[in-house]
């Protein structure tokens, strides 16, 4: 039984303009994304900026109301719930944001920040809540006297720990982590990644883990989905995806990672051009279009849904990007 099932999720934003501020075009940020997530599992989501990975994250916690598609969480379809009904579901569904400096209220003490989830959910007495906040701080490795301090008194890594503590407060089943370590230095990044792994082991958390750093995603994830221009182009168990990528885009992404080993100099196939705009995206295979692949014409007439090529390994079977 999966904890989260996303089916054919679409998130289109209207692009307005002109004299009457009418909708001129649609920005198809997410265009038909499906995946599922089991309890205690981590699904990594990678792709270049603008591919729609953060929009998926925001839709899953319903910070955005999807245009179409369903999001089943724990047996409830959250894509249609009202704000009141969502409040209850959000106990089990939390998010950690990229920039901890911007996602913590600068005028609240850490104690207030950590007690707020309990107040919103009307849980506990005042004494109980402050006890819980102290426990949370201990759990993420911060000193107990932090409750009286303000966010600016902490370093980036410590603020991210506070963000994680807040997400943990209501004992959720799923935490959506949107680029949780990309604002941090490498030595601190390793500390935060280790903390996330430890919490997952202790509480059986599931993560939807979004990052642009492919080695970080590989380290954290059980399965990885690669997004390109609003669609998942490949999804596979982490080891399988990194050892045996099938889609040309996945190969290009993996090839672009700089390797911290000067003895391994390699000639790489550089990807030309930039990610095209999701406003009026090309028909057919978007990556084939960017690469000006001779078979791109062919792909516009095909069904480009994901196909299972080996157990658990799905790929968008288009003639330009995959040798089947």
């Amino acid at each position: 039984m999966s904890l989260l099932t996303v089916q054919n999720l679409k998130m289109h934003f209207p692009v307005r303009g002109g004299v009457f501020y009418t909708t001129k075009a649609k920005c198809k940020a997410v265009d038909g994304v499906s995946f599922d997530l089991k309890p205690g599992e981590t699904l990594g989501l990678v792709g270049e900026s603008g591919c729609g990975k953060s929009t998926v994250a925001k839709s899953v916690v319903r910070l955005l109301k999807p245009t179409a598609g369903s999001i089943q969480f724990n047996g409830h379809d959250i894509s249609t719930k009202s704000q009141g009904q969502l409040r209850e579901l959000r106990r089990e569904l939390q998010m950690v944001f990229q920039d901890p400096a911007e996602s913590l209220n600068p005028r609240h003490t850490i104690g207030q920040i950590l007690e707020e989830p309990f107040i919103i959910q009307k849980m506990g007495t005042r004494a109980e809540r402050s006890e819980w906040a102290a426990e949370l701080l201990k759990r993420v490795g911060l000193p107990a006297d932090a409750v009286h301090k303000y966010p600016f008194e902490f370093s980036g890594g410590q603020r991210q720990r506070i963000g994680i503590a807040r997400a943990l407060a209501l004992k959720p089943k799923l935490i959506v982590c949107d680029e949780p370590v990309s604002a941090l230095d490498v030595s601190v990044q390793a500390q935060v990644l280790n903390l996330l792994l430890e919490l997952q082991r202790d509480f059986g958390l599931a993560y939807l883990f979004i990052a642009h750093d492919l080695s970080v995603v590989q380290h954290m994830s059980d399965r990885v989905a690669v997004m390109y221009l609003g669609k998942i182009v490949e999804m596979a168990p982490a080891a399988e995806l990194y050892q045996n990528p099938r889609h040309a885009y996945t190969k290009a992404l993996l090839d672009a990672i700089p390797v911290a080993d000067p003895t391994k100099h390699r000639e790489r196939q550089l990807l030309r051009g930039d990610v095209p705009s999701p406003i009026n995206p090309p028909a057919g295979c978007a990556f084939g279009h960017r690469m000006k692949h001779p078979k791109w014409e062919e792909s516009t007439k095909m069904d480009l849904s994901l196909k299972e090529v080996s157990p658990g390994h799905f790929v968008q079977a288009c003639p330009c990007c995959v040798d089947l």
Partner: protein
Amino acid sequence: MSEPILQVENLITGFDTDAGRVVAVDGVSFSVPKGKTVGIVGESGCGKSVTAFSITRLLPQPHGKILGGRILFENRDLTAISPEEMRQVRGNDISMIFQEPMTALNPVQTIGKQLCEAVFLHEPEIEPREALARSLDMLNKVRIPAAEQRLNEYPHQLSGGMRQRVMIAMALINTPKLLIADEPTTALDVTVQAQILELIRDMQQDLGMSVILITHDLGVIAETCDEVIVMYAGRIVERGPVREIFAKPLHPYTQGLIKCLPKLDHPPKTPLPVIPGMVPSLADMPKGCRFAPRCPNAHSDDVLSQRQPWKDCGQGHGVEACACFASQLSAS
């Protein structure tokens, strides 16, 4: 080894703040050989950008000051020349590219105008048509598609990768001898990063210039640099040829930095080695080994209070030989 184009000797740079003077770069010495790429790596606040801004004399005024040391560029001390002379050096001989191309480009001027401005500043007599031709040529060199059309466009019409290419074109238009790139790819996607790094490498070979590449990404260092300088809390803790540094890092900080990166061959979902704690505050820095409070090696309090000696280990590989591991150095 070829002769150095730039020599930095015992550079000390500080900032005057309300709480007194803080020293951000404390006695940094290194040299950049002609035609080579030197990488400076370190975490935020280690002084790598301040070092770069000291070399180009672009420190925030009036708070930033070079307090000591010399910066010799082709045997001329850049700390001693007038601002007017420095302006001639900047752009002509030394150019810089910055991390965020959107903030470094003027949003209300076309790309063409900004490129031509760089030409005019250094060659006031040049024909406008000639300046424009040179700008177009440069945009083609940095592989901007439809370059002619781009000359009339504004920065917001370009993607991040394109903007960074424009920055590079602007920096190279007067064929400088030294390019300082301060985190040139940090704001970019990996695929675009690979393109930009390749571009810098190619331009370096074409123009025979030297490059100082500042980054926090060891992967970028490994792929592009000939030599590496590792900075921690305002000081150089280790430097050497790139292969040496990665094959046998000597300083515990360098070792920690290399180990704590998630690697594709590291078993997934297992704890990564970490450097515990965090960088000490600039206002409250130990006098001696600044890494000691986070160092995994056992050490005495002397290490904290006394500046540790620099030790040369041959082949250009040197390290701040803190007493906690210096004994192992002589043994090996």
